[in-house]
């Protein structure tokens, strides 16, 4: 890889000349943490775009999140959700998610279609059930490494009639007995489901 040639200051470009949607397509790809921590103070056009709700249709909290403490990530996530002004459609929360944060998302994001929750010990069955009640448009739910029970699955099925995709990964659960009730809860409550992925589930042949 060749190092870029040294640039003199007058070679800097005025990125204000780019159309908004081009700049927006760069920002959206950066992910929420980069936008909040650096992109929004790069220049005025980026700053303005970072305040506009459509920039926050999708909130991806993955990039470089490990450098921050959970309370800060929770605060940043909440800030990002607030900036979407109810337009949020797609969100990805890893590790730092809590019931409170999930409730905030559910309370303010009636249009949410896709929710990814990975490794969030701070979210309980009740938390997810209560949030689901406020997310009638939810189409895709992915829950990984989280001990969710049939109770929450039933609640999600009842409250989210449009649910088409469910990914449910319980790999870390130390449970060895055979158990069909989760799968039954899914079948009985999620009639629109088109895509189902169960990992680490103790489903038996009979249950299947």
């Amino acid at each position: 890889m060749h190092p870029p040639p040294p640039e003199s200051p007058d070679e800097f470009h005025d990125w204000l000349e780019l159309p908004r949607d081009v700049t927006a397509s760069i920002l959206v790809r950066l992910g929420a943490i980069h936008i909040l921590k650096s992109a929004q103070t790069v220049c005025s056009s980026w700053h303005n775009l970072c305040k506009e709700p459509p920039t926050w249709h999708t909130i991806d909290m993955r990039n470089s999140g490990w450098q921050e403490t959970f309370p800060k990530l929770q605060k940043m996530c909440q800030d990002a959700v607030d900036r979407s002004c109810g337009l949020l459609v797609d969100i990805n929360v890893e590790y730092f998610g809590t019931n409170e944060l999930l409730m905030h998302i559910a309370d303010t994001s009636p249009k949410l279609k896709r929710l990814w929750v990975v490794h969030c010990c701070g979210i309980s069955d009740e938390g997810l059930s209560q949030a689901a009640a406020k997310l009638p448009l939810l189409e895709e739910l992915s829950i990984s490494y989280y001990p969710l029970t049939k109770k929450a699955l039933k609640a999600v099925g009842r409250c989210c009639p449009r649910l088409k995709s469910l990914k449910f990964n319980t790999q870390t659960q130390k449970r060895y007995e055979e158990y069909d009730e989760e799968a039954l809860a899914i079948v009985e409550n999620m009639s629109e489901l088109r895509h189902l992925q169960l990992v680490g589930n103790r489903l038996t042949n009979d249950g299947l």
Partner: protein
Amino acid sequence: MSSSKKSRIVKFKTSDDKTFEVEEAVAVQFETIKSMIDYVCANDCTIPLPNVNAKTLAMVVEWCKKHADERDQLMEVDVDEAPGAVLYDLLVAATYLRVEDLIHRVSQRVSKMVIEIGKLPEEEDVRKTINIKSDFPPQVEEELRKLRRTLGPLSDVLVLFVSSGLLE
């Protein structure tokens, strides 16, 4: 249509005053130009491109010549090794000519460059990496630097910064 089967040539004049001959098969991929090709060819016109230089137009033409399937592989090296200034020129050109695929490819590369800075970058790192100039008033810049210094890179500088009211 009376146009001949033979591939026609569309002429452009770039911002650095160079004349460029582009095959019709490539020119039709410029959405902005597409509808005027018949007229331009029939009247032997040259289309001026006031904000696209010859070097950038050559890259755009090269991009469009590749078959859509091969594009990503063939252009990977060119786009990935281009510094921020070249990417900016490409974005301006692709936007002006409306070559959607190229806009997506380059914006993807720009955001990747920012992410690849490695740590959580500060605005100055982002500006240097992709050649963006700050247009904030000096007092805003000064305040931002002060906050970064006193609170450190991992603190909630920006939330404070924004709530300080310096920026609307």
